[in-house]
């Protein structure tokens, strides 16, 4: 209905194929040229190659490891010596979170960090968490808090799942 098969008169399919191959190559070259040229002149230039290992991703800009083990986190929690901050979206926090954890969704951090952190002194131990081994929200939040001047910030990687699996205290929506 919308299209009709017809023999091409101006160009054969072979010619069109060759044309599309060089166009694809030219577009790729143009995209590479634009991407790499503009990247060179950005303030926040992305390095071409980066250590993407989990260890490297858990380093603070000053080179300290930011991750904390579940055992250490549990100990601090039971001593009530730590503020735990949930970096996941608010909906996930509402469905369930580590007991006494505060919600500071990474995507609302600019609007909400003042209200969430106003009563926390800069040397108070803070643990951030989200869910999933690859979740970056807690990493971003930890680095943000370090930038704000908090000196004792750690990340519990895959925190929500680990905390539940260890049967540690949580608060769930249906428990209200």
């Amino acid at each position: 209905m919308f299209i009709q098969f017809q023999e091409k008169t101006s160009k054969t399919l072979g010619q069109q194929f060759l044309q599309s191959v060089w166009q694809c190559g030219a577009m790729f070259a143009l995209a590479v040229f634009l991407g790499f040229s503009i990247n060179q002149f950005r303030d926040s230039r992305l390095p071409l190659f980066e250590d993407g290992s989990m260890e490297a991703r858990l380093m603070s800009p000053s080179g300290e490891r930011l991750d904390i083990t579940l055992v250490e986190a549990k100990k601090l929690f039971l001593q009530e010596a730590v503020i735990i901050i949930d970096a996941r979206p608010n909906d996930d926090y509402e469905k369930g979170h580590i007991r006494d954890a505060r919600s500071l969704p990474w995507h609302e951090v600019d609007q909400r960090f003042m209200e969430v952190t106003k009563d926390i002194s800069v040397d108070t131990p803070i643990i951030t968490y989200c869910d999933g081994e690859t979740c970056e929200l807690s990493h971003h939040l930890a680095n943000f808090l370090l930038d704000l001047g908090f000196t004792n910030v750690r990340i519990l990687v895959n925190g929500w799942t680990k905390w539940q699996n260890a049967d540690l205290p949580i608060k769930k929506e249906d428990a209200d």
Partner: protein
Amino acid sequence: MTKKRNNLPRFFYHGARLILGVIFIYASYDKILHPKAFAEVVYNYQILPDGLINVTAIFLPWLEILMGVFLIVGFWMPGTIIWCNILLVVYIGALCFNLARGLDVNCGCFSTTKGSSISIETILWDAAFLVLSVYLFFVVFGLKFNEGSK
């Protein structure tokens, strides 16, 4: 005596071209603005080796924006439409692969910051775009509009 021309095929062709063009431009601009965040999205898919993650995050959004602009202005259509089909098939493959292995990652389809996880819905959206792209492929390669008698 003039025959009435059927403009419906032409309307569909230009409509599909413009829709896909806008989609690719919309999908690329946030990635261009936030390359670091996009590199993290690529990393989280856990498909590419580490050495290719930043390189991909640097050039891929520019390829998308070129495709978007070329689709809208109708420039280099054969090459553009081949890239559209390749990228959409790759995206759908990556989404299906990670959904099948239960990886809960940010889609990064249109935004590097919004926390929309991959889901069947995201795959269906991409599949719908692929339908448009395949349609354009058939139009551009050897299929002509039924424009009635010339």
